[in-house]
């Protein structure tokens, strides 16, 4: 068995701090000094449990048969061991410490501490010497593990048991197994020390050989006990009722966040399982010595320096500037408790203020002040704080504190026995009581180094993430010992490997070019020279209802397209077009549009596409902002320009190209038009997007950006001359340029969609008729198409080889359906007009439901960064704002220097000087492999009850329900005016599915389950076709409490208990048994409170999801009545019956209490 340091979660001794630099032996003092002579209370008939014991007892009730709170110890003993002496030493221990023979039976509703007279500790002897040598270690490990995982019966005991496994003539493994309800970290030191003393007495190696017990020879002496743990438990009841101390805490923690949004690898499950693992790293003795020196200079302790560093790291990773770090305090607040075994340790939340970018030394001073203040009130039990702070009971999150820190400047307890060589073996660390639980402890190997062990929730984190966290922590400590004045934002965050990846793999430098890329219209002209007769544009109508093809389909060859574009360019130049001018384009999809784009670019001017559907007022604003004097249009749309100060140039008049011929022909310039006088910095187009204020913003894109985009996208999509690419987007969207230009740069054929594009269900017909190989669709349209294919109203396309989706988040469920029905690869594309259409792409594979589909990696020449609020790069996993730099950047916003300066910032990470990067407003995170994931918009991030919520994540979970087609989530004020989460669904059934809430409850933490769900026939869309969350209607108001008719009055005890609880948590006068909890204004939070009380009163674990499934009192009572017996382990029938009886008696009492 490999040796590992002790499980930090159970072995911690508790931190001790003093204002002076040196660690002190003075423990935290409780608020109320206790009298010197404490009366013995353990002889009382029904001694109460301490609050920590009661919390453990309740957990044991909720998870019967669990070994989560077992404390297993195993040691290899080499040498002549006297097994009988060891057994008798154990019994002496239990005789001396009443807690080791205490059990926790019920008296009425409440457990109490009963000290058994019998002190004998059962030792199980196992002889493995008959097992072949090669298999012995494994057999021994299995034996110890079996015993370690055996549950304890808290009511019957014993709560200390032992195994002695013989593995050789003079070699054995000694296993000692306790329940956490009887011990803590310092207990283990005492236990090992006293075991050695009693063992030596038993084997008679004491000098007097009499086994004097208390007193006597120093080596064989154990201190006299003036109290027992039960005395402390009684005393603690007084501290728990210390209202002055509680008031201090309530004030100190007012407004403190009760959750720390650590960047997790996996979504938080609805109910935490408590499964954990521990990662151990080393901190060199030299580094810790530097920290100690730093601490001395700041009149602090190494613990405070470690806390400041830990908080700084958590703050940088989460963006939180106010957070709580939990720390265990020894709790042995009286001299008489110091020699006692027992669960004394208390958790104290330290509130750390990281606002204002403090220097590290400043932060240490803040932590010192906060810790000293907290130390004055450390006697208040953690459980009391959680209760009194009314922390929402969320079974997904450890209450109040999610990150713990323990610092130990002495090695953890090691076993020793006279005459034998003992070595502590592996301990089982498969539980996590917190998300992150960091223990820094001096290594027992004598090297002077420290072990840095992080126990973590394995539901949330991967081992590699935790290892990286430890590496970051070490790097941060190293940095602050070198320069303690570093401000928070400059503390290093990336590991060395990440810093290397950030400089190379995340944003690879494109291969150097010998010459600048030719502008995109030159790239197309080159294809016209290579393949003059190949089709460049092909307009095919979809088969009509009768299946007949439109004979009027049009095909334009490369030579023809190039000639038309040249003609148009000449005509435009004659009108004064050239670099610096902007030509409007108001055309539907079709061959004219393609000609118009190329013609304008060839003329040297830039184009501005106008939307045929936009109102005249919008067109007027746009043409004015872009200083448009000429607009290319057709006879059908020219009328829209009537009142504008622009000259329409018609593309569809048969002799149109000749209109301006006179001037050109006179010059005899009917050859290919040149690009003289054009520069890569000249504008190629200006595209207007609707800004958040509704005022259109004109994004000006230079040729250099568009040329890079055409080549990079051609390469990413692997476009060739064989490709036939659908032109689906309206010209006013830049995606149209992405469909047209890279295709033509590759020699492929553009297939303009009819105007308007067909309904999604008819797209297959269009694609098949045109033999399309590539299509680029908005995600919502594609999702409708996918639904049609899966529903049988459309067939899978035949010739399509690649589907590109983008513009909106892609639903992983739709992706799975698409793959199943078509098998056609999908690229998820991400980009902004400001960064020239697509900047990032991801070739999708399997995506777990409920997770966003990644947006991938930057295309050639483009750079992407995830930055925190201080513009520092974040490591993989952490969420920050996405910034895009590199070759795709727009020049800026037309006529808007301030907006340009605000959104295009200096790029400190670019290889060259003077570069800029665009602030996208999107929240993103990087996967460990460098792939990026967009999780939402900064301005759409919702804040509900202090939680930051990405509506997209909740929408994705809603969409995992088979009936839900589309979903939207926003925050709307509830009846009390505070925001709550509102969900909207479009469903196949036409109503909110009854089990939708239960479905979500199984997938999302409580705080992410919408309090109200509303069905809509369709979601409101903005002009760009995206879901418009602001236009969602107010959710239906909560129904008022029904007047309880005879049938609605609670009848049974259980119904009355439930009704009482509901009235209490919902603050209602009365509730009917058929009322829906959520209709009455209940939320997931209040439901969790009901769940807590119900589990508490029933004394057994109840799946939270069953409360969602039975949202009325009558349904829930009925469910509990039938399901009650089944939830208890079958082997424990009588105990289950006891529990039910106990639950019933409590219900009875509750009822009496209320009437």
């Amino acid at each position: 068995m490999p040796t590992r340091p002790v499980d930090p979660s159970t072995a911690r001794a508790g931190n001790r701090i003093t204002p002076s630099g040196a660690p002190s032996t003075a423990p935290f003092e409780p608020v109320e000094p206790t009298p010197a002579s404490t009366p013995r209370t353990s002889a009382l008939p029904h001694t109460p449990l301490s609050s920590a014991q009661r919390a453990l007892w309740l957990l044991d009730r909720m998870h019967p048969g669990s070994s989560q709170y077992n404390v297993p110890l195993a040691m290899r003993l080499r040498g002549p061991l006297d097994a009988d002496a060891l057994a008798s030493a154990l019994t002496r221990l239990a005789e001396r410490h009443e807690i080791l023979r205490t059990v926790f039976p019920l008296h009425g509703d409440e457990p109490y501490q009963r000290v058994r007279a019998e002190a004998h500790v059962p030792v199980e002897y196992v002889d493995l010497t008959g097992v072949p040598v090669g298999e012995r270690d494994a057999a021994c490990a299995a034996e110890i593990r079996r015993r370690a995982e055996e549950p304890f019966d808290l009511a019957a005991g014993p709560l200390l048991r032992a195994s002695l496994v013989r593995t050789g003539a003079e070699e054995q493994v000694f296993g000692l197994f306790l329940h956490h309800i009887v011990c803590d970290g310092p207990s283990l030191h005492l236990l090992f020390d006293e075991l050695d003393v009693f063992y030596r007495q038993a084997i008679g190696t004491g000098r007097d050989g009499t086994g004097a017990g208390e007193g006597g020879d120093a080596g064989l002496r154990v201190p006299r006990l003036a109290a027992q743990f039960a005395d402390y438990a009684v005393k603690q009841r007084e501290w728990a009722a210390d209202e002055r101390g509680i008031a201090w805490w309530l004030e100190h923690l007012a407004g403190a966040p009760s959750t720390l949004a650590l960047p997790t690898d996996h979504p938080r499950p609805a109910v935490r399982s408590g499964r954990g693992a521990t990662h151990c790293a080393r901190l060199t003795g030299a580094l810790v010595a530097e920290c100690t020196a730093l601490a001395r200079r700041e009149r602090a302790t190494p613990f405070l320096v470690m806390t400041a560093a830990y908080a700084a790291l958590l703050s940088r990773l989460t963006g939180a500037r106010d957070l709580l770090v939990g720390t265990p305090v020894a709790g042995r607040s009286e001299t008489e408790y110091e020699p006692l075994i027992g669960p004394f340790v208390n958790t104290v939340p330290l509130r750390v203020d990281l606002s204002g970018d403090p220097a590290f030394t400043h932060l240490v001073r803040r932590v010192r002040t906060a810790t000293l203040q907290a130390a004055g009130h450390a006697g208040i039990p953690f459980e009391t704080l959680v209760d009194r702070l009314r922390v929402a009971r969320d079974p997904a999150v450890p209450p109040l504190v999610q990150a713990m820190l323990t610092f130990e400047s002495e090695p953890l307890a090691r076993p020793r026995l006279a005459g034998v060589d003992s070595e502590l073996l592996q301990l089982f660390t498969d539980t996590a009581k917190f998300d992150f639980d960091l223990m820094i402890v001096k290594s027992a190997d004598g090297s002077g180094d420290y072990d840095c062990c992080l126990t973590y929730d394995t539901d949330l984190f991967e081992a590699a993430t935790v290892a990286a966290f430890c590496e970051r922590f070490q790097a941060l400590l190293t940095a602050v010992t070198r320069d303690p004045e570093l401000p928070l934002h400059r503390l290093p965050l990336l590991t060395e490997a990440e810093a290397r990846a950030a400089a190379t793999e995340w944003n690879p430098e494109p291969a150097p070019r010998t010459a600048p890329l030719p502008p995109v219209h030159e790239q197309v002209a080159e294809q016209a020279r290579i393949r003059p007769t190949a089709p460049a544009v092909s307009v095919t109508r979809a088969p009509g209802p009768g299946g007949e093809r439109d004979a009027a389909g049009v095909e334009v060859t490369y030579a023809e397209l190039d000639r038309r574009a040249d003609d148009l360019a000449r005509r435009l130049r004659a009108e004064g077009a050239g670099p610096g001018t902007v030509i409007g384009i108001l055309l539907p999809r079709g061959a004219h549009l393609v000609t118009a784009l190329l013609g304008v670019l060839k003329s040297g001017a830039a184009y501005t596409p106008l939307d045929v559907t936009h109102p005249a007022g919008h067109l007027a604003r746009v043409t004015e902002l872009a200083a448009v004097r000429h607009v290319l249009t057709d006879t059908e749309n020219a009328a829209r320009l009537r009142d504008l100060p622009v000259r329409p140039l018609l593309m569809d008049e048969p002799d149109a190209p000749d209109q301006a011929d006179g001037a050109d022909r006179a010059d005899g310039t009917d050859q290919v038009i040149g690009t003289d006088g054009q520069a890569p910095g000249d504008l190629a187009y200006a595209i207007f997007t609707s800004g958040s204020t509704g005022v259109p913003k004109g994004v000006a894109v230079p040729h250099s950006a568009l040329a890079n985009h055409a080549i990079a996208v051609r390469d990413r999509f692997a476009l060739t001359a064989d490709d036939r690419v659908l032109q689906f987007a309206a010209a006013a969207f830049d995606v149209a340029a992405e469909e047209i230009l890279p295709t033509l740069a590759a020699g492929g054929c553009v297939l303009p969609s009819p105007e308007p594009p067909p309904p999604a269900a008819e797209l297959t017909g269009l694609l098949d008729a045109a033999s399309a190989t590539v299509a680029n669709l908005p995600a919502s349209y594609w999702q409708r198409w996918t639904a049609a294919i899966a529903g049988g109203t459309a067939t899978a396309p035949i010739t399509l080889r690649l589907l590109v989706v983008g513009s909106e988040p892609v639903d992983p469920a739709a992706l799975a359906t698409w793959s199943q029905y078509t098998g056609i690869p999908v690229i998820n594309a991400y980009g902004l007009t400001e960064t020239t259409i697509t900047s990032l792409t991801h070739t999708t594979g399997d995506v777990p439901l409920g997770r966003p589909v990644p947006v991938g990696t930057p295309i050639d020449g483009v750079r992407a960064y995830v930055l925190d609020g201080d513009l520092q790069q974040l490591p993989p996993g952490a969420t920050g704002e996405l910034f895009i730099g590199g070759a795709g950047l727009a020049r800026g916003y037309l006529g808007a220097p301030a907006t340009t300066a605000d959104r295009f910032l200096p790029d400190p990470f670019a290889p060259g000087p003077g570069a800029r990067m665009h602030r996208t407003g999107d929240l993103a995170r990087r996967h460990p492999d460098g792939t990026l994931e967009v999780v939402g918009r900064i301005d759409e991030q919702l804040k509900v009850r202090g939680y930051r919520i990405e509506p997209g994540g909740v929408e994705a979970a809603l969409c995992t329900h088979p009936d839900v087609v589309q979903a939207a989530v926003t925050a709307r004020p509830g009846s009390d005016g505070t925001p709550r989460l509102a969900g909207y669904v479009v469903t196949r059934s036409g109503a909110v599915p009854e089990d939708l809430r239960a479905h979500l409850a199984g997938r999302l933490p409580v705080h992410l389950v919408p309090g109200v769900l509303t069905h809509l026939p369709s979601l409101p869309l903005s002009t760009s076709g995206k879901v418009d969350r602001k236009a969602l209607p107010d959710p239906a108001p909560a129904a008022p409490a029904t007047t309880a008719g005879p049938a609605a009055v609670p009848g049974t005890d259980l119904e009355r208990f439930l009704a009482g609880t509901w009235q209490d948590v919902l603050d209602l006068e009365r509730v009917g048994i058929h009322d829906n909890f959520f209709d009455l204004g209940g939320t997931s939070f209040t439901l969790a409170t009901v769940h807590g009380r119900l589990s508490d009163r029933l004394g057994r674990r109840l799946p939270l999801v069953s409360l969602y499934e039975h949202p009325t009192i009558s349904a829930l009572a009925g469910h509990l009545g039938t399901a009650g017996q089944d939830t208890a382990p079958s082997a424990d029938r009588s105990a289950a019956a006891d529990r039910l009886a106990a639950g019933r008696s409590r219900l009875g009492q509750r009822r009496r209490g209320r009437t």
Partner: protein
Amino acid sequence: MSRDSAERQYVVVRNDEEQYSIWPADRTLPSGWHAQDVTGGKDECLAHITRVWTDLRPRTLREAAGH
């Protein structure tokens, strides 16, 4: 995401292409960017940029067009 944005101080910066932007005043300037003589709140800095940055074209392009 932006920390203490209300009271944060910025400096107006310009690169060699005479493109303007803003940068937190207490931070080292990225290479190739030069602090202008204007420091203050974000709105103040952006108002200054509106006054001085009248031609968004990069300097080299502007100069080439001028010849």
